[in-house]
C-alpha cells in the first residue's frame, strides 16, 4: 500500500525500428517499436522508455510517428529520449504522446536548457539521462565521469556533482546508465546508483547491465532506485516483464501485480 517500484523496458529505436547493442555498438534488429510497446503494455510494464538513437537528422521525424502510434494503443506512461535539444523538440514529443522526455547530451553542453525545459513543462516531465563510466582506479574512492555521444566522448565532469546540479536546475527524475555495465549482463553499477540516489531528492532510475532478475532486485534494494530499466533481457525473451515483477515482489519489493 505504497508507491510501487517500476519496471521499465527500454526500446532503443533507430530509424523507426527497435535495436539493441552491446555497449552501445553492434546493433541487432529487434522488431517494430509499436508492436513491442503493445506487448510490454499487455505484460504489465509500469512505464516504457523509447530512446531514439537515429543518427541522421533525415530520419528524426520517425520517432514522433512511433510515439504517436504507441500512444494510440498504450494507455501507460511513456518516456522518450534521444536527440532532445530544444524546447520545440520537447513540445513535439509531448504532443506526440510522451509523458516525459529525457535529456542527455544537451544537459551536459547546456545545463540551462534543463532549467528552461523544467520551467516550461514542469519538472515532473523532465528526466535527465546521465551516462557515466567509473574512472577511479582500483583501491581509490569510487569516482564516475560523464560521457556523451553514445559513450565515446569523455567530459571530465563528475557524475555525482552533475546529478546534483541537474536536480537543482529542475530535473524531476534521473536516469542513470553505467556505460561500463551496459549490455554486459553483469548487473547495475550499484555503488553509482546508490551514491546518487542517496544524494538527490528526486526519483532515480537504474540502467545498464541487467542480465538476471536478481540484478533488478539489487537496483531497488541496494541501489535505492525507485525504478529499474532493462532492455535485452526483455527484448530477447530471457525473462518476461511479469516474471521480473513477480520475482521482485517475492524479494520484498512493493510491485504492481494487478
Amino acid at each position, binding site marked *: 500500500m505504497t508507491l*510501487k517500484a517500476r519496471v521499465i523496458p527500454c526500446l532503443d529505436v533507430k530509424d523507426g525500428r527497435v535495436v539493441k547493442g552491446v555497449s552501445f555498438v553492434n546493433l541487432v534488429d529487434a522488431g517494430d517499436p509499436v508492436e513491442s510497446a503493445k506487448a510490454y503494455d499487455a505484460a504489465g510494464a509500469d512505464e516504457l522508455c523509447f530512446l531514439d538513437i537515429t543518427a541522421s537528422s533525415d530520419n528524426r521525424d520517425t520517432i514522433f510517428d512511433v510515439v504517436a502510434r504507441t500512444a494510440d494503443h498504450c494507455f501507460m506512461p511513456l518516456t522518450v529520449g534521444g536527440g532532445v535539444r530544444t524546447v520545440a523538440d520537447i513540445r513535439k514529443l509531448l504532443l506526440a504522446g510522451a*509523458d516525459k522526455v529525457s535529456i542527455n547530451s544537451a544537459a551536459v553542453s547546456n545545463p540551462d536548457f534543463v532549467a528552461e525545459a523544467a520551467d516550461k513543462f514542469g519538472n515532473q516531465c523532465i528526466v535527465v539521462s546521465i551516462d557515466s563510466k567509473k574512472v577511479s582506479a582500483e583501491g581509490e574512492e569510487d569516482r564516475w565521469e560523464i560521457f556523451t555521444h553514445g559513450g565515446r566522448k569523455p567530459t571530465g565532469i563528475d557524475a555525482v556533482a552533475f546529478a546534483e546540479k541537474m536536480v537543482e536546475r529542475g530535473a524531476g527524475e534521473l536516469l542513470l546508465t553505467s556505460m561500463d555495465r551496459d549490455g554486459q549482463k553483469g548487473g547495475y553499477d550499484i555503488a553509482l546508483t546508490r551514491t546518487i540516489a542517496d544524494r538527490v531528492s528526486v526519483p532515480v532510475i537504474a540502467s545498464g547491465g541487467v542480465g538476471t532478475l536478481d540484478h533488478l532486485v539489487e537496483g531497488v534494494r541496494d541501489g535505492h532506485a525507485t525504478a529499474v530499466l532493462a532492455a535485452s533481457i526483455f527484448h530477447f525473451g530471457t525473462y518476461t516483464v511479469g516474471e521480473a515483477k513477480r520475482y521482485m515482489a517475492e524479494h520484498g519489493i512493493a510491485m504492481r501485480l494487478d
Partner: protein
Amino acid sequence: MTKAAEITLVDYGMANMLNVARAFRHCGAEIRVVESAAEAGPAERLVVPGVGAFEKSIRAVREKGFDEFIRRHVETGRPFLGVCVGMQMLFEASEEFGEHQGLGILPGRVARVPSVDTAGEPQPVPHIGWSALVPAQAERSWEGTLLADHQPGASSVYFVHSFAARPADEGDMLADCLYGGHRICAAVQRDNICATQFHPERSGEIGLSVIRRFLSL
C-alpha cells in the same frame, strides 16, 4: 450507450491533452476541444486535464476565460472531471512557487508532497509511479462514484506530481494513496464535480474504467 457521450476538453496549452483525448476516444466518447471560452458553447461533460506548474496553468486558464466557463459548467450540475493540475486548480490556493489563487470551487489548498516519510527518512519528490487507492474515510463508499469499479487497496493507478490537494471539506475526499506513510489526496468527488490527482489516461485498464465511469455519470 445509444449515442456516444460527448466530452468537451479544455485546451489551455498543456501538453498531455492529446493523451487524455485518446483515452476518452478509446472509451467511445466523442471529443470536442475548445481553445477559448468565447468559442465554447455549453458542455455536456467537461474535462480539464493538466500537467506542469500550477501558476502557469491557472494563468492560462484565466487568460482564455476558462475560469468562468468552468464555474458556470459546474453550477449546471453536469459532469466535470479535473485531472492532476486540472484537479488542483479547483481548490482555493496553491503554495507551488509562492502563493497562487485557484478557482475556489472546492475548499482547500494545494501543498507540496512531503519529502520526508513518517519515520523521518527522506523520500523522493516528484511522487512518480503506481500506487493503490484507499478510501479517504472509512465511511465513504465508492458506490456510484468515479471509482465504482475499483476495489479499495487493490489495483494501482499512475501518479506523477510534486504537489497535491488538501481538501478542507472531508466530505469531498474520495480516495487517497499512501506515500511514505502520508496520505496523499488521490481523488475527490462532490456531486457532479470529479477530480483525480492520478492520471486515468495513463493507468491502463484501471484508468480506462474510471473514464468509462465518468462517461456514464
